[in-house]
Every structure is written in C-alpha cells, then in structure tokens.
C-alpha cells in the first residue's frame, strides 16, 4: 500500500488535473500558448478554449472590458482569432516604439482595444464578402481562412 501511494506521488501527471492545467495555461503569453497547443491532443483541445484567449487579450488592459464585449467578439470570430489577427500585430506595432525607451510591460488603453476591435470587425466583414464571392451557402466562416487584405498592413514589418 505504501509502495503504491509512493508510486502515485512520484507519478504526478499534469494531464490528470485539468483544472490546474487550465490555470497554468491561462497565464501564458500568446506564443507559449500556441506552443502548448502542439504538445498533445488534450492540450490542443484546452488551448482552443476561447476563454483562455480572452484572458490573454485583456490581461494588460488597464480596466476590465464591459460585459457587452464578449458576445460581439464571439460573433466576429472569437478571442483567439482576435488575438492572432489583430491584437498581436497591433500590440507589437504600438509596443515596439515603446520597447526601446521604457522596457516595461505596458498596459494598453481602451482606445487601443477599441481600434483593434474595429479593425477586427472590418476583417470579419471582408471575410463575409470573400465567402459570398466564393459561393459559400453554409457560411462556415471558421474554415474560411482567406487572408483578407484589410489587415495585411499590420503584418508587414515596421521600418524602424
């Protein structure tokens, strides 16, 4: 009996405690979260959970967003897409200028969030247009990952 308990204690496996795993994943930054999603199927499923990405999106916002934001973001494609398509490039663009001078983790403002949401909405609207042009009748926009051009200006490197 003691031998078994000892073995159990030694064989701690994170995948047995999903709650702890989620708590850990909640605190990762974007790149680490993507890397985590490549570890195994369980981690991939958990990392796809949009609430993790919601945590990531609003982690550095100075004040918590109003409750009306979530349904809008979910309707426009979800927090993971918001982060990958809009927030990450916007933050890196805006943060790059500050990184050289301050070197501190900056909180970003309501305005920046609002701008990102607006750009995200334009992106969604263009995907609608692309889907319509391709003749999609079932509107499965999740798979329709045609890179719309309205946000491509964010993806190009900054001429510093």
């Amino acid at each position, binding site marked *: 009996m003691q031998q078994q308990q000892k073995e159990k204690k030694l064989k701690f496996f994170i995948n047995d405690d999903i709650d702890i795993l989620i708590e850990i994943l909640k605190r990762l930054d974007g790149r680490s979260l993507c890397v985590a999603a490549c570890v195994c199927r369980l981690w991939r499923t958990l990392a796809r959970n949009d609430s993790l990405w919601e945590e990531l999106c609003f982690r550095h916002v100075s004040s918590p967003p*109003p409750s*009306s*934001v979530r*349904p*809008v973001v979910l*309707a*426009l494609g979800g927090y993971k897409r918001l982060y990958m398509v809009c927030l990450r*490039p*916007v933050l890196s*663009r*805006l943060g790059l*200028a500050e990184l050289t001078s301050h070197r501190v983790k900056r909180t970003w403002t309501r*305005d*920046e969030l*609002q*701008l990102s*949401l*607006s*750009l*995200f*909405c*334009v992106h*969604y*609207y263009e995907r*609608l*247009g692309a889907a*319509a042009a391709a003749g999609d009748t079932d509107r499965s926009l999740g798979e329709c990952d045609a890179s719309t*051009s*309205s946000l*491509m*200006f*964010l993806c*190009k*490197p*900054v*001429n510093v």
Partner: protein
Amino acid sequence: MVLYDSATSGGSNSGSSSSCSGTKQPVAEIDGLLAGAGYKVRSSELRQVAQRLERLETVMVNSPADISQLASDTVHYNPSDLASWVDSLLSEFNQPPLPLPSDLPDLPDIIAGPSVNHTAVGNYLTDNFTTTQQQQQQQQQMMIVTAMEEDSGIRLVHMLMTCAESVQRGEMAVAGSLIEDMKGLLTRVNPSCGIGKVAGCFIDALSFRIMGVGGSICGSVSENEILYHHFYEACPYLKFAHFTANQAILEAFDGHDCVHVVDFNLMHGLQWPALIQALALRPGGPPLLRLTGIGPPSPDGRDSLREIGLRLAELARSVNIRFTFRGVAASRLEDVKPWMLQVSPKEALAVNSILQLHKLLGSDPARNSPMEMVLGWIRNLNPKIMTVVEQESNHNQPEFLDRFTTALYYYSTMFDSLEACPLQPEKALAEIYLQREICNVVCCEGSARVERHEPLAKWRNRLAGAGFRPLHLGSNAFRQASMLLTLFSAEGYSVEETEGCLTLGWHSRPLIAASAWHAVPDVMMSHQNSN
C-alpha cells in the same frame, strides 16, 4: 572663363606635345599650354575635363544650398591635377562623372553663354520657335544640356511646366514635340520611383489632352470600385477618413435611440462595420440603425447596393443591432432628391461625404447651383452631423497652368507616400486609381471634369455660407488617427489638427482633410440674414 578657352584651344590642337619643344616628352602627354599655366592635364582628357568644369559651374550656380562651406570645409585635391580636382568638387555636389557620348559636337558651337541654367533654355524655347530647324537645334541643345546636367528629374518637371504653358496658350505643335522629348527623357529617369512615375502620369494626361480624348479615360463602375478598394488597402488616407468620420458620428449619436446614416458613396461599405461594432459596444446599448447608401447604378443587372446592404445587415445581426438598409442608385449626386432618403423627423441623422462634395462644383462658378441645391436640402433635413472629407489641394483654379502646377506637386507627394507601401498588387492598383484622378484634372473640362478639389479654407467658407456651423472633432478622433498611423509601416505620415478639423499629410504636407458640421438653427439664420 579663361581656363575654358584654354581647354578648347588645347583640345583642337592635335599635336600639343609639339609646343613643349626641346623638353623631355612626358609619358602621359601632359598638355603643354596648360602646363605653362601650372595645370597638369593629359591631352587625351582635355575635352572631358572641360565638360566637367562646365558642369561644375552650372551646378555651383544652380545649387540651392549655401556652397561657401566648399571653401573652408572640403578637402580638395591639388588643383594642379585638374582632372582629379574637378572630380572631387563635383562629388561634393553628388555629381559622379559620367561618360559622355562620343558624337558630341564641338563645345563652342553649343554653349550659348557661361552660365546655362534651366530657365534660360526654357525661355529660349518658348520665345524662339518658328522653323523646324530652330526646333531641331533647340532640341539638340536641350538634349546636350540634359546630358551635361545630372538631375533629369528637375529637368522633367520644368519641361512639364513648359508643355502645360504651351497647352494653355493653344500651341499644340510645340506641346506635342515637348511630349516626345519628355518621353525620351523619361527613359533616362528611373520610372519605378519618385518623380518618374508621377511624371509619366502627367505626360500621358497631357498627351490625352492634346489628342482630345480626355473624356474616355473614366472606367466602368466595377473597375472604379476595385481601384478604390486597393487604394483603401495601400495607404491610410481612406482609413483615416472612415475612422475619423465614424468617431464624430458616434459622438453625435450619443443618447439617441433611432439613428440614420446617409452615405454619399457606398462603394463596398468598408466604413460601416467599424461604426456598427462601436454602436454595439456603446454604453447604454445599441440604437436602431438605418443606413442609406447612395451609389451609381450597376450596369450588368446586379444590384450591388443591395448586396452590400445584405452583407452589412448580416454583420449587424451577428452583433445584435437592429439594422435596416436602403440603397439609392444615382449616377450623380445632384440627381438625388431628399424624399428618396426617407428621413424621419424622430431620428438623428448623419450625412457622410467622403471625397464626394467636390464633384458638385460645376464649371460655371457664378451659378454654383448643384452645390447650393444639395447643401440646401441637406440643411433642410437638419442633420445632427455632416462629415466632410476632401482632398486638401486646389485643383479647381480657372487657369489651366495653375491647376496643372498644383496638381503636379500634390500628386508627387501622394506618389511619394505610396512608395512606402509594401503590398502588391495593392500599390500598383492604387497608382492607377490616382492616375485616373490626374487624367480627370488635366484632360477634362466642363461637366466632364469632376475632380474639382478645393482646400479646406474654401470649404469652410462655402459651408458656413450655406448655413452650417463647424463641429470640433474631439481629442478622441485625434488619438485614434495617430494610433492608426503608427500601425502603418511608413514613417512619414502626420496628423494635424487645425481649428477642429483633422488633416493627414505626408511629411507635413497635408493631403486630406476631415471636418464635421451641423446645421445652424433657423432662428439664428434669420437673425444672421437680418443683420
């Protein structure tokens, strides 16, 4: 120029070494006459050194900067080694020595005087053309002077002005020959950057004007939509316009539950998703939103306005906003009548005009009636806000040459800012979009010329006279515009605020101006009129 004469006379002496009789012949065959003056120049290089000296003088005379630092700061070669000395001075002016064509005629026949500058040749051209032989001579002279001057770009600009002046005077033959010269010069300028591209556009526009085919340049409706879309992607001007107007409209709609937006040019409706999303998230909940989009009728039976409306409706449905859309098809803005818009008195109205109002400025400035008529019915609808975005330049001057000059500088700046765009094919199509505008400004007249841009000061007067009062675009709009610009990779854009209006420019040259207005109440209008 004493040295100059010595050089030419030295050059025409075939056996210069014979003058150094009795002395040991130098291996490099230094010219004897110049050696007597203390300068060592090889006989074989005499012509090149003379030409470089001439060019150095031209450059020094025409140099815009203060060149006195050459006397003190620059390290010169020993002037007795004349060839290296003149090269080192030329490199101070960034003029690398270039190999000149070997069939160059003898120099004394060509150079009219010691200082050859652009305006001298320009005046010579416009004053002295009568026979074709003289024209040929002038062309030859111009070609040779061009070869000697490094900056073909500046040359091109001056030739464009000269050509425009000829067109204004009706001297089409001269203008035609100038265009041929410019096309030749264009091959020497790099066509893929800076002055080359915009000069190419203007040369084409001038040749269209001379041939009288200006009216056929405008493309089909769907073509224009595609070009507009790519212009939207390639540079921030339209995005700035949309976001600034949206911010002003959002603030004006604060507290209203029924709102109505009239868009004077719907295109693909790219402005409205952001407003829909902002209204969805506004504190207090979203209003009932009506959008009326005005656009040209689509020729091939497709109802493009309705398609855009359906897309916007789907977006609005996703974010839970009650939304209705109405499309008004009209090929010109003055054909729209207010009853088509079905404005209800209970709703807050916003009128949005992005680069549209200038098309109403008819050719006859005294009448002005389409503009007055449209502004009149807008005012009678009593909008909460009217957002106006226009190009910041005067392309509606009565004299062709003034218009041409202003347009040349404006579109040069535009094309400069477009250079920084890394996206292809967006950049190429955006350039075609601008090319069409240039053609309209340069080639067309009368009712065909719709691109009648006017600066913000003129719009202020016009709108104030029509019964509108300016609304200051707040600090939110300015912050948003600045943020938007930092997202663009090019470093030259700048946002400025002047008396409540925002302008976006390239290297502090404003190119597009956004302003907001609302109607003065009738009581105040009659009070103003009675004064």
